[in-house]
């Protein structure tokens, strides 16, 4: 084959692979929307489940997922951003740095069910928090750390070195430089990482299984030590544990979860594009 032909073939294959990637996501969305859209109604979104969850709505699960996502954010964001700043700006080639990096790689590799068991052992039992929003948020928060740390570190490192040099040449301390020249420009990337991490946490079932999720709890939680329903676990329950569950309710629940998670991703994208457009360097 001539080089030009080889090139054409290669481009064709690469383009086809890229196009194929779109198909599964489109199919998943179409499938869930088609099967679940019929279930969506005001009652479905605003009411508690009734009659063994076969009627009513999923409001406590939606609210529970939102609360857990906020809890995850509170646990995860300060720790992750602190660690990312340390790694990007201060970490020398020393033992602490190597331990921190090793820890992050390993945290990222742990299966989510193991986080669930860890949360049960550490927070529910050892810290005696019980099956509670506090325990669930801590578990999800730790699970979310690696992805947020990695994206935040990348965002911090992508701020041009020149700004740091110039800032310090003007008498700013290292911390002032980070605070005034680095973090503001890294914010879009950090926010993206945070939201992507949180959207993953919002959709996880295994980590909340033993730490917070309630099988059926139509009342809303009143404090951090209460249990709550949550969408992913509720979906698991109605799909596998409740005989005679109408399919439409299952797909409706899946659709709500999908919309919640995808709208978080959308928000992340919008924030990033807006802030990128505003910068002039």
């Amino acid at each position, binding site marked *: 084959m001539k080089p030009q032909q080889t090139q054409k073939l290669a481009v064709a294959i690469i383009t086809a692979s890229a196009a194929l990637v779109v198909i599964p996501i489109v199919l998943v969305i179409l499938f869930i929307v088609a099967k679940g859209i019929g279930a969506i109604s005001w009652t479905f979104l605003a009411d508690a489940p009734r009659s063994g969850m076969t009627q009513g709505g999923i409001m406590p699960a939606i609210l529970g997922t939102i609360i857990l996502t906020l809890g995850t954010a509170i646990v995860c964001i300060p720790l992750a951003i602190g660690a990312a700043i340390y790694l990007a700006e201060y970490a*020398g080639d020393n033992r602490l740095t190597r331990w921190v990096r090793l820890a992050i790689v390993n945290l990222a590799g742990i299966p989510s069910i193991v986080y669930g068991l860890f949360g049960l052992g550490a927070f529910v039992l050892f810290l005696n928090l019980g099956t509670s929003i506090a325990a669930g948020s801590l578990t999800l928060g730790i699970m979310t750390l690696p992805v947020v740390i990695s994206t935040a570190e990348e965002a911090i490192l992508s701020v041009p070195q*020149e*700004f*740091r*040099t*110039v*800032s*310090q*040449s*003007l*008498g*700013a*301390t290292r911390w*002032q430089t980070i605070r*005034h*020249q680095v973090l503001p*420009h890294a914010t879009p990337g950090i926010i993206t990482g945070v939201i992507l991490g949180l959207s993953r946490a919002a959709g996880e079932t295994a980590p909340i299984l033993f730490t917070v999720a309630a099988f059926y709890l139509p009342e809303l939680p009143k404090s951090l030590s209460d249990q709550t329903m949550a969408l992913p676990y509720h979906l698991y329950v109605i799909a596998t544990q409740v005989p005679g569950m109408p399919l439409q309710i299952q797909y409706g629940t899946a659709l709500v979860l999908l919309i919640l998670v995808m709208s978080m991703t959308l928000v992340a994208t919008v924030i990033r594009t807006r802030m990128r457009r505003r*910068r*002039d*360097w």
Partner: protein
Amino acid sequence: MQPALQAEHVYYTYSDGAEALKDVSLDIAPRQIFVLFGPARSGKTTLLRLFNRLSDLIEGSAIRGSIRFNGQDVFEHGVNVPDLRRRIGMVFAVPSPLPGSIHDNMTYGLKMAGIRDAVLREERVERALKQAALWDEVKDRLDNSAFALSGGQKQRLCIARSLALEPDVLILDNPTSGLDPLSTSMVEESLHELKQRYTIIMVPHSVQQAARVATHAAFMLDGEVIEVGDVSQIFGKPHDQRTEDYVTGRFG
């Protein structure tokens, strides 16, 4: 008169072991335009960045010997480095505004120094911009982005930004490298004004520029200072053959 800056037997190595400076000794008296010239990789920029300890940002490098600012060893333990950098301003080869407006750039160092008095800041901003001969061009658009300025304006902004901190010394590392001849002569002109009040150390763009602006000069080669003298001696009758070969364009 006590030199403003001194290097005494300075040796400097980067983390890869490369020896960038070898036994460099220099005295720079106040209110000179002291030019460090020589071919690429002769250690000029490396030496400049030792004076304000910007070399601290390079990991794993090592210095022997001493750098003195008004008699004080700048590498001594307990030296207030941010304060040192405010007193020894620096302008880089590539015009390097920080993101934000012209005004943001001008007030950044002052704010970081903890100067809260906005009136005082505005006075300093105006005076520094006038000293750098930029005031008339930007006074009506201080809130515009610094990146919207031309290359020459950006570089004069960077000079003004350092001057706003009222330094004793101004270090310029090839400040006209990317500028057209007109902008270059505007920068050079402002240097002659500034010499009245500041000690200026500069790496020039060319031998010709060195001869134009310098009051004193040092010729550097391979990390060593070959010869130091006033401008007429260095460019008129250099003592060292290598200096003569370089200023007459036989190499470099």
